[in-house]
């Protein structure tokens, strides 16, 4: 089996072996670790179940996070969605609700699954459980979707970065959204090439996004950026499934993300020294929190 170091390698390997991206990841993991495929699948299934538990907890918990900065919005969004006809439709509004539930749980120091990070943990579960809710995608397929997502994330992480401190929010919510977009395409029967195009399109739309958390907490604006990520993931997936390609190849988009992250000033890479963290309201929140703590 060839070594996969780029999205170009990945598409080529999938095409020549007639495998999906998810199957390719599973094969690679089995080969690297010597573990049986069933063992690996059950480990991934455990992660899917934890994601579902975080959603189930978050969707009915309207308590405020210890910081006082977040909480209650998942319940609010769920109520709105169930009451009326959300403008963004069933797929996206469910994904938005589930994403809020996950990211709010994360802010409460609840148990979540990093996908690829905790700061971006809302995007993928939001998208996956929306597919489950709206078109009955089975848990078995969702688990395969997690293999698809991890393969896309694996290439991104090794060619660029996935932490806000290293590369800004584009590296976190950007990578998560890109992974989610490609995963939707594969779960909806698109080709590996289409999945990689969706990945590129989603990532392009978040290039340059800075990491500027208020008071250094993974809450404002992180939680709502996860929510927006789900919506971008569905849009990018639709474009790719329509046969639209990214004019810039995915590997070059990832390289651009890397270079932008390197150029980003330290103040905008998770240090809470710039952007929204340094707005009037952001600064007040920080003062209030740290005065209370010390």
């Amino acid at each position, binding site marked *: 089996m060839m070594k996969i170091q780029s999205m170009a390698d990945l598409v080529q390997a999938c095409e020549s072996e007639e495998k999906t991206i998810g199957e390719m990841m599973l094969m690679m993991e089995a080969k690297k670790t010597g573990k049986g495929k069933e063992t690996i699948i059950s480990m991934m299934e455990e*992660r899917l179940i934890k994601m579902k538990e975080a959603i189930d907890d978050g969707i009915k918990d309207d308590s405020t996070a210890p910081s006082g900065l977040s909480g209650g919005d998942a319940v609010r969004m769920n109520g709105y969605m169930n009451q009326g006809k959300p403008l963004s439709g069933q797929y996206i509004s469910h994904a938005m609700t589930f994403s809020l539930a996950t990211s709010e749980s994360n802010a409460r*120091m609840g148990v*979540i699954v990093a996908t690829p990070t905790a700061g971006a943990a809302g995007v993928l579960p939001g998208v996956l459980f929306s597919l489950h809710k709206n078109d009955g995608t089975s848990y078995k397929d969702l688990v395969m979707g997690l293999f698809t997502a991890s393969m896309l994330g694996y290439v991104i992480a090794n060619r660029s970065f996935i932490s806000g401190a290293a590369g800004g929010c584009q590296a976190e919510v950007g990578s998560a959204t890109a992974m989610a977009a490609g995963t939707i395409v594969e779960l909806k029967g698109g080709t590996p090439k289409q999945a990689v195009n969706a990945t590129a399109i989603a990532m392009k739309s978040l290039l340059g996004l800075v990491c500027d958390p208020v008071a*250094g907490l993974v809450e404002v604006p992180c939680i709502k950026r996860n929510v927006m990520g789900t919506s971008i993931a569905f849009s990018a997936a639709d474009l790719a499934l329509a046969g639209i390609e990214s004019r810039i190849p995915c590997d070059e988009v990832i390289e651009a993300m890397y270079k932008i992250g390197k150029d980003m000033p330290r103040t905008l890479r998770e240090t809470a020294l710039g952007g929204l963290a340094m707005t009037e309201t952001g600064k007040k929140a920080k003062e209030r929190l740290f005065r209370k703590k010390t």
Partner: protein
Amino acid sequence: MEFQSCFDIIGPIMVGPSSSHTAGVVSIGKFTHQLLGCCPEKAIIIFYDSFAETYQGHGTDKALLGGLLGMDTDDSRIKYAIDLTKQYGMSYEIRLEDRCPYFEHPNTTVITVKQGDCVVKIGGASLGGGLSKIFMINEETVDIRLSAGDDFAALANHCQSRSDLMVKAL
């Protein structure tokens, strides 16, 4: 190629709020715990750069202390780690510095732990997504990759004999 497994990307299962500032740091603490073979009685923790700026918000201190007490990334007691240090008889001190002189990464920490005659100094970086790297044991450069699912006891045993020698020299 720092990321090697699908579970480096999907995972770890962890308490929030940050994989690099919480989960990855729990692993650095846990490795240190395993290397020492127990909870330290004293720990001097230096947080650099991004860790120094945002540790309170991300619970980086709780994460590291939880790891030093022997907890895993998904241990729901991590949020109470500061109180638990008293119960475990561990004293600690946190120092904040700008840039790590040993390793180029914004999320780095150097921890010196003491238990009886044994003193160990560990340098760790949290690479993102819960993945970490130990880059220094005492003054020696090492490259030990930590992922939440790894067997930390085995990893620590692997470098135990060498670090024992180093400890006596301190």
